[in-house]
């Protein structure tokens, strides 16, 4: 018997296992009624999407701004600026 057959037989055996009984009704209802778990309202959803959109725009804008700043403040740029009278 190879490992795979052994695995399959064990899996078939595992499928017949009895699962412990649970009763989560009291805990779930308590949690829901306490207001600790409330679905987002329409306004909250709107704000969330707005925040996500703003972040999505802000990050590339910051990257572009930093690269433009670095390019304009490079040593070559300073030399060009300082001898601009010669041009």
């Amino acid at each position, binding site marked *: 018997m190879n490992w795979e057959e052994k*695995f399959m037989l064990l*899996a078939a055996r595992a499928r017949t*296992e*009895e*699962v*412990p009984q649970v009763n*989560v009704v009291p805990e*779930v*209802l308590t*949690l829901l009624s306490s207001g600790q778990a409330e679905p987002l309202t329409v306004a909250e959803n709107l704000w969330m999407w707005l925040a996500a959109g703003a972040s999505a725009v802000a990050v590339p804008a910051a990257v572009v701004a930093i690269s433009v700043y670095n390019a304009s403040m490079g040593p070559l740029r300073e030399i060009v600026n300082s001898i601009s009278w010669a041009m």
Partner: protein
Amino acid sequence: MNGLMQSIWGLLTTSGVLPNALVRGVADALDADASRTEPAAADGEDIRQTRQGDSDAYRRLIERHQAHVAKILWRFSRDRAIHEELVQDVFVEAYLSLNSFRGNAPFSHWLARIATRVGYRCWKEKARQKDAEPFSLAEWDQIADEKEAIERIDADQAAGLLHGLLEKLPPRDRLVLMLRYIEGCDVAETARRTGWTRTMVKVQSLRARDKLKKLVERSGMELI
């Protein structure tokens, strides 16, 4: 139409034209069909009432489905306290996203998807914390490679052994192997439960099986 069919069926059964065995068989099939559609109808009504703020309706939904959800999550955690927490999480998450349930598939399928997501999240957190319980392949090797010997093993021992073995794999591989081979889901069902495409399920299954093969072939060595 249903009324007409029932009248014809009533005439046929009372007239004695049909053999008794056939009548019994059809009656059993009709009963089974009715028992399948009954929970779906009850679910639909309870979901509608829950959306209107009736907590009793949600209690009925939990009572009807918690055993099914518990069964799914027992494959993800065999620690009773964690298991119960995960079942709770599923029903809280289901409540919060109940408005997104469109009713195209049975409620139990929708819950199974949430349960799989919750269980998978638990595995990923555990993998990040690297607090997997110690498992040695010696346990795997101790089991004789004979069909009769394996069939004599306790079901919970077999499940515990596979749980420990699969815990050595990354959560993604573990999930696909658990669904395909331990839960016995086909490719379509696995895709539905995980939210992956069927191709992805097939590819992931192959990769995971290869990893598992390498794992069991490293028999007797200290693992990962």
